[in-house]
């Protein structure tokens, strides 16, 4: 990447945001930037780094599972690794990935704005993210050793363990502020900075998804902040909120944790759903089917998503009445996601479909995410959940939903917007090959876990009964296939970054506003503020600029 030193007048509107002359030079032009695009790029490199770290940990965990008993590590190491894998993936990758990277970069452009409403706050969010990440890394090498509580930090274990829980939990607390501020910024941006003609129902669905997500971020994240601080206070001073030995209640912790963490699941998946709603119309060359139902279902998910946290606690001993109510609500929260899937598939009907790499990832997503969502029904059902909860069935389910949903769509978004973000084209053939490897590896890795869970293999087990070994072997081999696919994908993109052909402004024939500016965009995004007269996916006047091969 260029470092902003090319001698062109800063007011020349033709210069892209990498090369525009800024107040600061070199590395400072990044670290002190308030440009939403640069902040988005900085987030991108941070989340990809942490994804690779957590993925590597996952590979070691699967390796340990290859044989019963000790394969490559001791139980304490394994317990720390699955905790780290979860904490890094969730707090440092899944939650920020789509909103902080692609939301930051594309939300203002899609709205026809020059930046987010509060650019300095935006930079502060990035620093909070980095500080949180540094604190999390510091906790690994200080105190009583690597945290071993699982990413849920359940009390009383998290209060009693001698490992370094307090610092890790504090890191998650700081990361929460980054999330809240980003959410606040996006809500304000959407309310205030839409360009002339951009009515609510002319907004791209990605913006709608981010809008719903941001409200959850702002309203739910404070709850986890308080909860985590209470853990730290409990550990330091024994105040007796959660520890029954001091008159506290462990179930109170579970309620508070899931009041945040269930809506957080939708913080993770809603932005990904927004990306899907962008990619399918572009590569089907037609308007999205059911714009309004998709937009409204995002808000529906956000709203009902608040009311279903109890389904994480069906076996915890909460009252039978509350279990019934939570179960019913859980079945209803499944509906908006189903409606979205039907509308996406219907969008392809009578379209003119081109299966490019981003589209291939989306097709993969629809298959995998459907499995994830449908297996969730058995976990929302009262009697089957008591058998399946806390087994590998749950592990499989949430990897199908989170990785298969959000992770795969992160890859899709990366391929969809890569030409716009970096002004370069990648090798399409290699990108598709990687997607197919990822699809095969993913299902090999996680599908056997459904079977193991149904047969009674509990999760977070260092060791297992010999009867499960055949499934574990299959799953571990799957992890190798998956990881090789992911590495091929990233290497392909890294090569494109260095040597890719120059990307045209609109390589896919997209209709939303980001395709109407240059690749990469200029500093102020547009030469003049655009005026919108149609819906976001109007292909009637589109002449797709095919990539010159």
């Amino acid at each position: 990447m260029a470092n902003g030193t090319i001698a062109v007048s800063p007011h020349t509107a033709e210069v892209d945001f990498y090369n525009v002359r800024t107040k600061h030079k070199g590395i400072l032009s990044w670290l002190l930037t308030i440009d939403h695009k640069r902040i988005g790029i900085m987030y991108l490199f941070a989340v990809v780094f942490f994804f690779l770290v957590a993925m590597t940990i996952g590979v070691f965990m699967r390796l340990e599972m290859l044989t019963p008993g000790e394969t490559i590590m001791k139980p304490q190491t394994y317990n720390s690794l699955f905790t780290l894998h979860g904490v890094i993936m969730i707090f440092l990758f899944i939650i920020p990935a789509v909103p902080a990277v692609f939301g930051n970069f594309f939300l203002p452009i899609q709205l026809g704005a020059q930046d987010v409403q509060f650019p300095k706050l935006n930079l502060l969010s990035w620093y909070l993210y980095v500080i949180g990440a540094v604190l999390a890394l510091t906790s690994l090498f200080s105190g009583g050793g690597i945290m071993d509580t699982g990413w849920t930090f359940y009390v009383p274990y998290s209060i009693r363990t001698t490992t370094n829980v307090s610092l890790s939990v504090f890191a998650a607390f700081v990361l929460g502020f980054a999330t809240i501020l980003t959410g606040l910024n996006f809500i304000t941006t959407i309310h205030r900075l839409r360009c002339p003609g951009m009515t609510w129902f002319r907004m791209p669905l990605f913006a709608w998804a981010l809008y719903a997500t941001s409200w959850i971020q702002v309203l739910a994240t404070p709850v986890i902040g308080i909860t985590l601080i209470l853990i730290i206070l409990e550990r330091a001073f024994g105040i007796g909120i959660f520890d029954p030995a001091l008159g506290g209640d462990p179930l109170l912790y579970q309620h508070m944790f899931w009041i945040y963490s269930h809506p957080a699941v939708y913080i993770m998946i809603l932005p990904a759903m927004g990306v899907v709603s962008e990619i399918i119309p572009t590569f089907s060359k037609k308007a999205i089917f059911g714009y309004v139902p998709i937009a409204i279902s995002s808000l529906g998910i956000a709203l009902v998503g608040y009311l279903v946290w109890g389904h994480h606690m069906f076996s915890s001993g909460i009252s039978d009445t509350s279990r019934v109510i939570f179960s019913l609500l859980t079945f209803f929260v499944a509906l908006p996601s189903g409606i979205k899937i039907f509308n996406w598939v219907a969008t392809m009907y009578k379209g003119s479909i081109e299966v490019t790499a981003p589209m291939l990832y989306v097709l993969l997503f629809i298959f995998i995410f459907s499995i994830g969502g449908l297996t969730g029904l058995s976990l929302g059902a009262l009697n089957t959940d008591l058998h399946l909860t806390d087994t590998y069935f749950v592990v499989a389910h949430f990897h199908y939903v989170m990785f298969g949903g959000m992770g795969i769509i992160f890859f899709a978004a990366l391929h969809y917007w890569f030409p716009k973000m970096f002004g370069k084209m990648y090798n399409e053939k290699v990108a598709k090959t990687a997607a197919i490897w990822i699809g095969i590896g993913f299902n090999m890795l996680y599908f056997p876990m459904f079977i193991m869970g149904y047969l009674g293999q509990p999760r977070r087990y260092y060791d297992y009964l010999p009867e499960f070994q055949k499934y574990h072997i299959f799953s571990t081999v799957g992890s190798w296939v998956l990881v090789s696919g992911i590495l091929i994908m990233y290497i392909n993109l890294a090569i494109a970054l260095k040597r890719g052909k120059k990307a045209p402004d609109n390589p896919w024939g997209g209709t939303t506003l980001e395709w109407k500016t240059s690749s990469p965009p200029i500093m102020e995004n547009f030469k003049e503020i655009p005026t919108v007269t149609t819906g976001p996916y109007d292909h009637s006047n589109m002449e797709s600029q095919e990539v010159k091969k």
Partner: protein
Amino acid sequence: MRPNIVDQVDQTFWLITGISIILLLIITIAMLYFVYKYNRKRHPVAENIEGNTTLEIVWTIIPVILVLIMFFVSWSGFKNMRDVPKDAMVVSVTGQMWKWTFEYDNKKKSDTLFLPANKDVKFEIKSVDVNHSFYLPAFRTKEDAIPGRVNHYWIRTNEPAVYYAACAEYCGLNHSYMYAPVIVIPEKKFIEWKNYTPPDTTKSVTTVTKTDSLKTDTLKTGNVNSLNKDSLKTGNVKTDSLKKNSGKKDTVNTK
């Protein structure tokens, strides 16, 4: 005769899974068919369809009906799981890092869960340190062991067989070794085993009326979680009579 919990869980699971497989096939086949049929090479110009209200209503109503069916089926199974038979034998289950202890109504303690065949058994589940979960995969159910609370569930045993109990809530270093053998034996043998006690604690069997009232007491308190600590204390105070009681009950049962 009540429906069997294991069958109900499996039936609910396969009902939901069956419906899910059909839905997954519809979605996937439609998607792949569209990708093939409306490929840009075959179908260069898209038709602009922006939506269809009838379809939206149809694919909202049908899933609503489907999830309501799933909900009611699972709810009826759940009611059966929570409605403990009045005459179920009570076993107290205590989790601690990292073993299970089972205590019977005559205060007999064991690391192995011996159960009589073809009987209803209620487990009262406690923990002395951190959260655990008492999971019986073969009986398709679990409930967490949480310090300061008493959770419960019941099962009906079948013919004699050997199973295992596992801990399903992460509890630290040896979480994955927290198994206990579950051995279902003929009732007669079970009673022999349960009543085998070291010689110094043998007592004569008397005061039948007194022990009967005690039995109902413990059952009642067992249903009210908040009262349990107290009832446990009373249980401790009246240990002797409890033993007599179980002795008496056993002789009745063996007939």
